[in-house]
């Protein structure tokens, strides 16, 4: 961050641009509610982290943002998820189009069993890309900080890479379709610390051009990469078998970790539970 006041005000301006807004979002699996009543404005051009104990519904909320939950039988959503001023759950909205604008990186690296080149080109091709494919592949791999490691083996299988490289390949694959938002569901949980660091560096690079929303179990990671942090918690419900998640607090990362407004947040970030 620069210290000049002009940059600060531009920064402030960007912060005020809401990229996605959740309004009273309740997500259920069958009859059982997983998360209830989430309100949240996610700023564009920044990194927003979702933290919280297991089962608090943070991944569920993340998957709701690009309608990935549609793929889970029995999952339903009440409330509104606004993106670009449009309710994503309007029946007229095509989920395929949503996912083209809002890309996703998953917990487990999941490259396609194709060559590295094809892994990147696949998304671009199905999105109707008509430019220079070689150039796009190189640009995407460079942005994901994995170009140097695979520039000599573009025609080898994506599965031949190490776990960390595979995950950065998946990030490159997500970037290649030029989405506006990238969702990351615990992208580093299967990686070693060095690969994690590289993926985090990648995220810092990416936030110049994309809005990033990341779910993480690692609080240090949230502190390192996120501008905004949302803390979710879960509590047992009467008569239910599972736990019901809800949003406890959502604010600047600094505030969440240094001066949280809620006791539960303080307990969680200071490691007293979760």
């Amino acid at each position, binding site marked *: 961050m620069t210290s000049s006041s002009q940059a600060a005000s531009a920064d402030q301006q960007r912060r005020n641009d809401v990229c996605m807004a959740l309004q009273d979002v309740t997500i259920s699996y069958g009859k059982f509610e997983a998360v209830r009543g989430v309100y949240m404005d996610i700023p564009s051009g920044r990194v927003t982290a979702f933290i919280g104990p297991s089962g608090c519904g943070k991944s569920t909320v993340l998957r709701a943002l690009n309608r990935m939950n549609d793929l889970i039988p029995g999952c339903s959503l009440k409330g509104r998820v606004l993106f670009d001023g449009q309710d994503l759950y309007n029946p007229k909205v095509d989920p395929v189009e949503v996912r083209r604008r809002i890309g*996703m990186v*998953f917990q487990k690296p999941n490259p396609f069993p194709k060559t590295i080149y094809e892994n990147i080109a696949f998304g671009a091709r199905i999105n109707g890309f008509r430019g220079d494919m070689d150039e796009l592949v190189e640009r995407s791999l460079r942005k994901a900080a994995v170009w140097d490691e695979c520039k000599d083996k573009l025609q080898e299988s994506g599965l031949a890479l190490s776990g960390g490289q595979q995950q950065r390949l998946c990030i490159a694959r997500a970037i290649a379709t030029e989405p506006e938002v990238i969702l990351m569901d615990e992208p580093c949980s299967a990686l070693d610390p060095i690969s994690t660091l590289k993926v985090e560096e990648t995220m810092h690079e990416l936030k110049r051009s994309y809005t990033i929303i990341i779910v993480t179990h690692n609080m240090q990671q949230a502190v390192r990469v996120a501008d905004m942090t949302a803390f979710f918690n879960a509590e047992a419900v009467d008569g239910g078998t599972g736990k019901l998640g809800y949003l406890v607090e959502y604010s600047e990362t600094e505030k969440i970790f240094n001066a949280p407004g809620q006791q539960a947040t303080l307990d969680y970030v200071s490691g007293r539970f979760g």
Partner: protein
Amino acid sequence: MSRIAPPLASNTSAFERHSLFFESGLPRNRWNRVFTGVAAVFAGLAVLPLVLVLLYVLIQGGKLLSPQLLTQLPPAPGFDGGGIGNAIIGTVVVSLIASLIAIPVGVGGGIYLSEYAGRGWFPPFVRFGNDVLAGVPSIVCGVFIYGIIVATRLFFGQSYSAMAGGIALAVLMLPTVIKTTDEGLKLVPQEMRWGAYGVGASRFVTISRVVLPAALTPIATGVVLAIARAAGETAPLIFTALFSPFWPEGIFNPIATMSVLIFNFAIMPYEAQNSLAWAASFVLVLMILAANLLARWLGSLSRR
């Protein structure tokens, strides 16, 4: 009198102590040898038919192997020489017809079950029905096709035809193809599908460009095994494809196949026909062996 606790290394232990060295005379070691021997004998008996069948067919049929066997027509009764050329072509034609029907239908059905069907009563019902169909005796498939195609002269007024035989074999192949496709697709990790949806792929693109290629090996293996099984079937062909001592005359006429040739010739009172039946057995076994090896090779591709 006070009781003294026995020392740890007491000789009054309730257990019998043996030396640490192996004693072959102990009952447990004797029984061990007996059961190892019994298991070995049964294992030997189990593979005996396999070895004997292969050897016998090899000796009886292998000595007749020659270019003329593969290229000539069977001789008229009472004459020597000749070959099984028409039956080889016939088996290939009938299997090809069966594959052309069973592979698209079976793979399509498997894709539906695994990818599109979702939950509800219908997919389990289809799977159960499919398992039942897999267990239906092959002669029943033959009677079924005889009833609806041959007896009704469905194709251009023709009764027995290569087409009818191919359809009968297709009915036989279907359950295997559906099941292996369904199960092959289920082996593809869910994350792979998510990855494709995550970059904005539609369901069709996800299935056709990512999921199917990933499951190609198990599907291909299942298909090859199904073809190999169908190619060796006799019962469904006897009253559908029938037999012909001549070269094939199109797919809407009766056609010779190797399995039916064996069935017909093995019991004829002519030496030449009997030896041709052996030769055909040999060629058929070789073809099925080759198909199984191909299936194993295809299967090994995925484990690399």
